[in-house]
């Protein structure tokens, strides 16, 4: 009744396609596991919809509603004109405070800027004595301090100049600077926020989903079961890589089309397919990292800690929170080994600047290389630890 289960001759030719079949089947199994975990589905849905919407709409414009206070010791028409130039959206309507209100207000973080117009300011200006206005800036708020003080300076000076010009004529500047913002003419932060959030979530989900899937199999003893079957570690790993990668890729694509293009009406310059191809390469690398982390951690709590320790630098130093070129050189070099750096670069190039493959191919090459390296490391580590898992 039992035919011999193994027929070496028939098998030999089809090892490759059988491997592919096994990888496919195990991957489908992973998808089922995910589908039967409603909590995870809710979380994935959340990260690629609500989370992106919130991140995009919350991000302020570079100088947005900057809180400013004015101490008007002059009380002249000129000082009133100065107070009137600050209005939303760049600045909050200025709080008019007495001189002794500056320190407590700035200490509590109520104001980033406090402008002190000295007594007799107008008369000094008209007399050509070039009086000084004091601008206090909370320099711990780096993002507003620098640009904001420039703005305040320009606006106040322009107002004063115009005031003075009514009395003295002045020649216009002979050279005009025509400044144009490319790719995002109004410098809308939501464009940046939404797309960077997608890039962040792609990394976060792929690492955690893959790593946790492996740890769960280990904690439930199913790895041992798999290993007693004609399945190789590489097949187990590849199955997790493709299935979890696919889930994240699909979620990212849906988020780009529905949330970013649809709901937020953010224009995407380049080809979506090219970006998704880049994302697929990125996912190859991050899912491998997830597996590697799972082989390092002995339990879910350890994996959780490891995830925080690795995800934070991967995201914050990739160049999607602060410009890469401003980081110390050493950090820049080290982060070249992180897939996120290249993914952020290619994402920005394709999505904002409409770059084509001729422009972003170096990032594709880098991602493929990093992915291959991480996959190899993870696989060898997986092979060597697999017997301890069983």
């Amino acid at each position, binding site marked *: 009744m039992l035919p011999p289960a193994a027929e070496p001759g028939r098998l030999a030719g089809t090892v490759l396609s059988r491997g592919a079949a096994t990888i496919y089947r195990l991957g489908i199994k992973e998808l089922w596991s995910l589908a039967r975990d409603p909590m995870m589905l809710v979380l994935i849905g959340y990260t690629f919809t609500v989370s992106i919407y919130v991140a995009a709409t919350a991000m302020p414009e570079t100088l947005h509603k900057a809180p400013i206070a004015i101490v008007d010791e002059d009380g002249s028409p000129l000082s009133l004109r100065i107070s009137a130039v600050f209005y939303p959206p760049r600045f909050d309507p200025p709080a008019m405070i007495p001189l002794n209100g500056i320190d407590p207000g700035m200490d509590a973080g109520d104001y980033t800027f406090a402008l002190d117009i000295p007594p007799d300011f107008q008369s000094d200006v008209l007399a050509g004595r070039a009086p000084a206005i004091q601008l206090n800036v909370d320099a711990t708020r780096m993002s507003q*301090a620098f640009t904001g003080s420039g703005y305040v300076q320009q606006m106040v000076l322009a107002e004063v100049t115009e005031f003075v010009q009514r009395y003295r004529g002045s020649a216009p500047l002979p050279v005009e600077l025509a400044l144009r913002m490319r790719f995002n003419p109004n410098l809308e932060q939501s464009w940046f926020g939404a797309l960077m959030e997608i890039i962040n979530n792609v990394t976060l989900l792929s690492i955690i989903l893959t790593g946790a899937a492996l740890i769960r199999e280990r904690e439930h003893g199913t790895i041992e079961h798999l290993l007693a079957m004609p399945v190789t570690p590489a097949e187990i790993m590849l199955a997790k890589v493709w299935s979890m990668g696919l889930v994240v890729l699909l979620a990212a694509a849906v988020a780009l089309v529905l949330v970013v293009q649809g709901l937020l009406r953010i224009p995407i310059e380049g080809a979506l397919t090219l970006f998704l191809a880049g994302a697929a390469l990125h996912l190859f690398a991050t899912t491998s990292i997830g597996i590697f982390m799972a082989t390092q951690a002995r339990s879910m709590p350890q994996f959780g800690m490891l995830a925080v320790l690795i995800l934070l630098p991967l995201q914050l130093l990739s160049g999607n929170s602060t410009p890469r070129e401003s980081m110390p050189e050493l950090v820049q070099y080290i982060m070249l080994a992180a897939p996120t750096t290249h993914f952020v670069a290619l994402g920005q190039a394709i999505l904002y600047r409409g770059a084509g493959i001729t422009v972003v191919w170096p990032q594709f090459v880098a991602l493929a290389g990093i992915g291959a390296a991480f996959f190899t490391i993870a696989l060898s580590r997986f092979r060597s630890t697999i017997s301890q898992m069983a």
Partner: protein
Amino acid sequence: MIGRAVSPDRGGVARPTDGSAGPDAPAPVVDLAGVSLHYGKIAALDDITLELPAARMVGLLGPDGVGKSSLLALLAGARAVQQGRVRALGGDMRSSRHRARVCPHIAYMPQGLGKNLYPTLSVEENLQFFGRLFGHPALERRRRIDALTASTGLTAFLTRPAGKLSGGMKQKLGLCCALIHDPDLLILDEPTTGVDPLARAQFWDLIAGIRTERPGMSVIVATAYMDEAQRFDWLVAMDAGRVLATGTPAELLARTATDSLDAAFIALLPEARRRGYRPVTIPPLVTADAATGAEIAIEATDLTMRFGDFTAVDHVNLSIRRGEIFGFIGSNGCGKSTTMKMLTGLLPASEGQASLFGRAVDPKDLATRRRVGYMSQAFSLYSELSVRQNLVLHARLFQLPETEIPARVDEMVRRFGLNDVLDALPDTLPLGIRQRLSLAVAMVHQPELLILDEPTSGVDPIARDRLWQLMIDLARNDRVTIFISTHFMNEAGRCDRISLMHAGQVLVTDAPAELVRQRGVATLEHAFIGFLEDAGARGDTPAAPAPLQSVLSATPTAPSDGRLKKAPNAFFSPARAWSYTRRETLELQRDPVRATMALLGTAILMFVFGYGISLDVENLSYAVLDRDQTGLSRNYALNLSGSRYFIERAPLTDYADLDQRMRGGELALAIEIPSGFARDLTRGHQVQIGAWVDGAMPVRAETVRGYVQGMHQGWLLEQAVHRLGQDAAAAPATIAIRFRYNPDVRSLPAMVPAVIPMLLLMIPAMLTALSVVREKELGSIINLYVTPVTRSEFLLGKQLPYIVLAMLNFALLTLLAVTVFGVPIKGSLLALSAGALLFVIFSTGFGLFASTFTRSQIAAMFVAIIGTMIPAIQFAGMLNPVSSLEGVGAVIGRIYPASHFLTISRGVFNKGLDFVGLEASFWPLLLAVPVILGLSIMLLKKQET
């Protein structure tokens, strides 16, 4: 009579049914009326009405999945009553007040070896934990622990982690933990399932001893072993969520006119269930030697496995013929499973050889794996896949031709009787059916060899016999070799040959009948115990259990007659909370990797962010498209390259070049100087210089704009003075900018105080997030359900060690900030520490919150990461002030405690503030603590629903 059932009757265990509890016993200890329980659509209990007599040993009998465990969980208060009335110890178990009052008098040992124990804690620590939960003072605990461990033989193992005990010892420890508070009602859910015969006999001796000491105590036991049921006072036979019959064993035997409980039980079953049942018969093994020569399926020579200096398997030699049913018998932890894993290639042997079908075991040899079916001891199928999906998946993994799979799966379904559960998920199935599914999966590819690690553990007699019938068919008809390990002596008796294993060594190998003959005893069980005793297995048990008198009767608090004394159940008992604190601390200590990662990891992250995140925008690359190529145009370009903010790249050649390089992100800025620039300027004509800024990153673009405008103005001024000879028009006023708190506008002093809140939020939250949900996954959450500990004690007790760890973290981060980063503390350190304390109470509380409503560790981890990382980075004011945020983000930023602690941290570090200046930020923190803890306590359930 099935097989060779053995009745263990060692050491005066068997108690007469009319023992200490007289025939007219007091009011029933438990009384149920119309009780039903559903898990989703599946009914576990169906309208049960039952009274159990007090001060007796009551047995719940029946196959797996008939609702025994559900019933016991209801009685213990571990599971919420859905329908009907459950009264235990004189009160309604639906009332939480009654549960709180009686739970110190009920002891519950859930199903599963050591399910409610903490594996990393030692025997002593586990006992201390339970002692504290019941509020015993230190001396009292010592006395009880000493007495209990002396009587169970655990004294020698006080320091051993519970996870490293053998199954029998785990159960004894579980019993000790249950008995530590003198319960009036002892509920044991299959306490001896999966325990070897010697340990089982010892366990029942122990119970009998305790009952002699405390005759008033009621004991309710669920068991799948019919031979054990023989000795109980009173039996409840159950099937399919209903009660079949009740009465003393003698009554049941008389009623069914049978001579064993096995047979009696089968006779009590409804006709439909009995259909198709037949006692197992074993056709003799046709020795193949004569016909085909001795074909050997499994051969092992000096197989040895060492883990460190512990030898799990010690020079095992085996030779199993094809078609043979070979049994592996031994105590838990004696090396059976390890040997099996080596034979399947799952574990590489430290020494010796193993071969299957004459080929050396090689993990890479996939062809041999196809000829072997393996069933591991723990259920290891995919609980997320339905029964059918599991079968199909495994058939495909074994690469059966796609066309044959449906037929093969159908055959398995028919053969293993899985038709009714095809689309069910394994988790919803009773153990017996799950084991059948496991066997079906192991058989799906028609292997020639089955390696089965305790396949019948915990399976009821009918299901067990059906499994055996299947295996015997396979062996005898299909000549499948079966290598099986088991605890059941009647199963051992069905094997062609068995090996008795102990402490890694095979004691003896022979046919069962031959072994019985050798020892000259009546049964195989006695023979086995004899061999074990020869090998010194009694070493861990005192020759005679010490009397329990000292603990129990002499205990001042022991109730004498089972009546409830007023239970001390304060709203919050620091002692019980402390018990959880100690336990959590010990667990943290036992997992140093986690604590180290928490401390070292934050330090590393602080470095990464302190140095890595820079808000200074510099080294911006730009290029010039100079169509003028005059001295003046070059002068303009040089003006930029002289700045420290800009780095000049190769000049642009045309618009296409400009476009290409900006798209690639190489240039942050491109400048175009038109042809005729110098000429027009000299003639006083209006000229326009074009500048394109990469707006992809708005913050950077804004900064670039500011720089370029500034430099353009500067150049104009300079030109006006030097080249064109005009007077520089003096500005009508000046603006003196004071950069306060951070005069150099450097990133580091601004970032370091901002990174501390982020790290103190994420790491502690991640630490606590898994602590509750882990107990849920591993089962020890049951201790919350059935002991007097309240939800607030449970959560706050667990939280405390993590608060301490987080404060250590805070100290480390502050020290790093001051020393390594050179960011001095200008304000009140006390205010900063107070803020940090409140904040870490919140962040650890958030982790607990995340784990109260999630069911799996992954989900809890996700909630913790999403709930902390995104708000901390984006909305807490680290990069952008909260006041500038919009929409939902602004709302989150305002109420999220991280924002307020950030204000405190910057206030103290950069602004030199103290409590007075920061008062406004302390109030939200003070408010956040009770809110998050209250929410967690509310969401945590005190009963399983």
